[in-house]
């Protein structure tokens, strides 16, 4: 997981598989970023080959925390397996969802 600034946003690039083993690391990183004053975060899931509901739980925890600061947590995702679990849980309607970082920062 690496983060970088893009305009007024912080982009967190997530790679690999996000499951019950790795999801806590995602949650911790989001909490660190938000606690560090990053309140406009884009999580790019383009490098994620697999994500289950525990990964979604980490994203929801980040969203809940960032909203306490009137912040925004957006997702970038075009990978079908990840989009599918977002759709099943209805979270594709909860998170701003974009096809690219450029699209997300423009929005």
């Amino acid at each position: 997981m690496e983060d970088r600034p893009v305009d007024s946003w912080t982009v967190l690039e997530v790679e690999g598989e996000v499951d019950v083993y790795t999801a806590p690391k995602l949650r911790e990183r989001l909490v660190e970023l938000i606690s560090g004053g990053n309140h406009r975060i884009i999580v790019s899931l383009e490098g994620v080959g697999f994500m289950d509901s525990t990964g979604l739980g980490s994203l929801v925890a980040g969203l809940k925390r960032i909203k306490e600061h009137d912040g925004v947590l957006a997702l970038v995702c075009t990978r079908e397996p990840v989009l599918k679990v977002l759709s099943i849980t209805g979270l594709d309607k909860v998170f701003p969802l974009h096809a690219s970082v450029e699209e997300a920062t423009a929005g």
Partner: protein
Amino acid sequence: MSDEAHAFSLDLPADPAYVATARMFGSAIARHFGLGEEAVEDLKLGISEACAVVMREGSGGLVLRVWEQDGGLELEVLGGAGMAEVGLGGSGDARTPQSFARSVAGEVLEALFDEASIDPGTAGGSRVAFSLPSASPSAQD
């Protein structure tokens, strides 16, 4: 290999680090039986959700079993201890992290598979089961 008596079985410690191994195991068997990649992805997600539920509910090891049934695949994950709820959504206190996580996992399993269940296991732990029909279009990819 045509019934539960000839199931493929994988024993794992109840350690989240091994859930990826369970997904790989299930995926290999699904491909062996000719399931398409979309079905394999569904199966991986199902195994991951099932393992997460079982691990949350106990500290013992878990067992993944896969067998062919009527041309499709049946899967079950057994293990855990101290299970107190029955039903995909969980019937206990919905405010606890465990029951919330279980309800989301149940939602995913119900959406992916026609037959999915979370029940008490025979050894006092929990059992998550689901099936993949071979006749699904994705199985012919």
